């Protein structure tokens, strides 16, 4: 990205997030702002999760998506994955983080399916290509 100006809707929202090695982490489902001393918002974090996406889409479908996402969380208060903006290394055709995806929380749905469905099928741990 050559220009210094960042467009929140265009450059951030709905872009693919990848980790240091290019592994998909998720989509930017929403952006969280902080407030500077003079009352201006600044980009504080990017949020990832069906529940953030559902709330952004809105309407019946969005509410349904958010409700499903909440259901899938078995523990505590469901929160989308929050990635502080300082962790963003590069904004291009994808948003590249400066950490590996193992350090981020694995989404509940992935975890549940891994433990209860896919992980139980023989060969699930065989190396990919």
């Amino acid at each position, binding site marked *: 990205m050559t220009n*210094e*100006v*960042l*467009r*929140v*809707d*265009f450059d*951030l*929202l709905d872009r693919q997030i990848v980790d240091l090695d290019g592994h998909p982490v998720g989509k930017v489902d*929403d*952006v*969280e*702002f*902080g*407030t*500077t001393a003079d009352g*201006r*918002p*600044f*980009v504080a974090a990017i*949020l990832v999760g069906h529940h953030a996406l559902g*709330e*952004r889409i809105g309407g019946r479908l969005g509410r349904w998506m958010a409700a499903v996402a909440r259901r899938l969380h078995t523990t505590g208060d469901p929160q989308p994955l929050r990635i502080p*903006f300082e962790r963003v290394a590069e904004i291009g055709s994808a948003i590249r983080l400066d950490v590996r995806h193992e350090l981020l929380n694995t989404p509940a749905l992935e975890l549940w399916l891994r433990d209860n469905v896919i992980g139980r099928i023989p060969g699930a741990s065989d190396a990919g290509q």
Partner: protein
Amino acid sequence: MLASDLLGRPVRDRDGKPLGRVADLLTEPDEHGRQRVVRVLVTPRRRGRLLGFERPGIQRPWLLERISSLLHRGTREVPWEDIDWSAE
């Protein structure tokens, strides 16, 4: 505060004149490197993604760019401080 709370909201200028709806938020880094919102892209019509033709220097394919700018006629950038967010 979330981006989804701001985008798509109808806003007015400081004199109370309606500006349209918020289509995008433009940020620039401050001295701490924080991306602060400096300008707001407002559009008189209903918000849909602008397809990226609103960025300077993006003009091809010509026909799509014409259609997009026709559909989003009147879209412009307004400095953050000139916007009254309280208006509904």
